[in-house]
């Protein structure tokens, strides 16, 4: 088990290098130029642009720029934002905790509500309740998050006055509730559908029949035998989901004025701040990696027969 984890951790290094390179190249491929962006619509004098580019090393070939970035990174230097002249690390340090709070909130919501709804509808497969849940999840899927965001904001904050329309204080869980729900909506639908299918399927399995035949109480059959075995595909999905929740918050964070990773990426992209985008995206990749490691480890928890040496 120790060796397994160590190997997975070692694998992170090539992934880390690969994804930084990938994102670096993508930033390079985008039209527009961060130094030119400093000047807005007016044409600046080329001398000054050249001077700034030279100072930042942006006049070097791509591989050289990447090399400089990478060596900087290994010395703990994420680079500096070109326009604001703030260290990228500051930007990240400020944005990540906010997003992590939001993501965890959304994640917990997805897990609890999704599995509950899925379980209920799976146990009553093809009955009225199942259909209602289906329609509900369907609505969540088919309405894009920006529509859902504006709708919720209008309804719950403005019309009903239950919550503040935007997040004033990112430590206040009550204020994060609305964006978290909007963020979680799509994943919630997936988790519900996956759990439902899995539960409905396993309900017919022999071991459940055996368990019921043994005379085990229904609660134990469902809670221990059924649920545990039905969660494997759900856990797989959730593992990938925590990363996409973090990265996918661009729209939600914009609507609710949450100053997290999504907003930071959006702004950086608009100004073509390469090092900021690469830095943030790389950290998200690391979250993915850790999450997928956790998922693989969780398989073992869910299925006692899985073991690591």
């Amino acid at each position, binding site marked *: 088990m120790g*060796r*397994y984890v160590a*190997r997975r951790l070692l694998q992170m290094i*090539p*992934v880390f290098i690969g*994804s930084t390179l*990938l*994102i670096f190249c*993508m*930033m390079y491929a*985008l*039209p527009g130029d961060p130094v030119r962006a400093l000047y807005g619509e007016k044409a600046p004098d080329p001398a000054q642009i050249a001077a700034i580019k030279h100072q930042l090393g942006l006049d070097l070939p791509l591989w050289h720029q990447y090399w400089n970035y990478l060596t900087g990174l290994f010395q703990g230097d994420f680079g500096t934002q070109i326009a604001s002249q703030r260290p990228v690390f500051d930007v990240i340090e400020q944005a990540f905790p906010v997003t992590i709070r939001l993501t965890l909130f959304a994640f917990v919501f997805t897990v609890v509500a999704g599995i509950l709804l899925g379980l209920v509808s799976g146990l009553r497969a093809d009955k009225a309740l199942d259909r209602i849940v289906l329609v509900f*999840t*369907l*609505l969540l*899927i*088919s*309405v*894009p*998050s*920006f*529509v859902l965001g*504006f709708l919720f904001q*209008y309804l719950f904050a403005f019309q009903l006055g239950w919550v503040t329309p935007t997040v004033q204080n990112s430590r206040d869980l009550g204020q994060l509730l609305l964006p978290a729900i909007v963020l979680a909506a*799509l994943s919630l639908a997936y988790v519900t*559908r*996956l759990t439902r*299918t899995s539960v409905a*399927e396993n309900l*017919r*399995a022999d071991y459940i029949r055996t368990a019921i035949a043994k005379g085990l109480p229904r609660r134990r059959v469902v809670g221990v035998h059924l649920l545990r*075995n039905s969660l*494997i*595909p759900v856990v797989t*999905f959730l593992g*990938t989901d925590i*990363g*996409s929740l973090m*990265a996918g918050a*661009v*729209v939600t964070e914009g609507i609710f004025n949450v100053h997290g990773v999504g907003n930071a*990426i*959006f702004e950086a*992209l608009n100004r073509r701040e390469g090092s900021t*985008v690469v830095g*943030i*995206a*790389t950290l*998200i*990749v690391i979250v*993915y*990696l850790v999450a*997928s490691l956790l998922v*693989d480890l969780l*398989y073992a928890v869910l*299925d006692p027969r*899985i*073991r*690591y*040496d």
Partner: protein
Amino acid sequence: MTETLDTAAKLPTAPDPAPTGKGEKPAKGRSLWSDAWHDLRRNPLFVVSAVLIVLLLAMVAFPSLFTSASPNDADLANHYQGDPHYGHFFAPDWFGYDTQGRSVWARMVYGARASVTVGLLVTLSVTLCGGVVGMVAGYFGGWLDSVLSRITDMFQGIPFLLGSMVVLTTFTDRNVWVVSAALLFLGWTQIARVARGAVITVKQSDFVHAAKSLGASTMRIMFRHIVPNALAPVVVVATTALGGYIAAEATLSYLGIGLAAPAVSWGVDVDTGKDALRTAPHILISPAVMVSLTVLAFIMLGDAVRNALDPKSR
């Protein structure tokens, strides 16, 4: 390590039916697929969804059958003419007019082509690409699994906005194909993971071991035994995602990188409609309802097909 994990994994669903589950059925020699078709025809779920989908496809192919108005005919005199005139079935102003004074109904009808195409195209290509990667990774395991899984990780880390912007600015024409390509580029990883997980669990089943010991070829094992049994979660995610892709096309429009100007799609209209949310919500609701109906139809279809194909649910 993964390999150990895999060999040890024996899932509860494993002790289920025999390898060629269908062999026992009376009609001998009938393949898995024709058998499924037999089942499907008698499933009301399937019939309803099929009718819906046929209607949708008719809209995609012959929009002019459903409305006489043109989706791009604008007359600002009709701006925000809010109230839909119910009762005039299929009349141009059945659902009122939008910001530009265009018929909402005509745009619902004509929008089907782009949206359904994007939805189907992305779902199919994502399922194919992601499915193959996931299956190969899950089935062969070992270093191949490690490499493929880590590549998946890498792609998953690309921010949606960055990825779609790069793809969509590389091509000058932002048409249905390019938008679909962008969504494929960003979406295949999800299916790949789900497929990998499913294949790993199925691989451990007794019937796969049995088939292996009987000397079945890798191809045969994969397509006769693994695919049908691992299909369930993949189909669930794929059919669910179909609606997500149609909605994602709307999100691209919201971010300013959706289908280019004269194109009509539900996504473009949902994006436009959000500005009228407080004054003329029907502009937003109409295309959103179309998206929901389409997703409903495909999810029901997916459920039915999966039930018919899944040997376990017999």
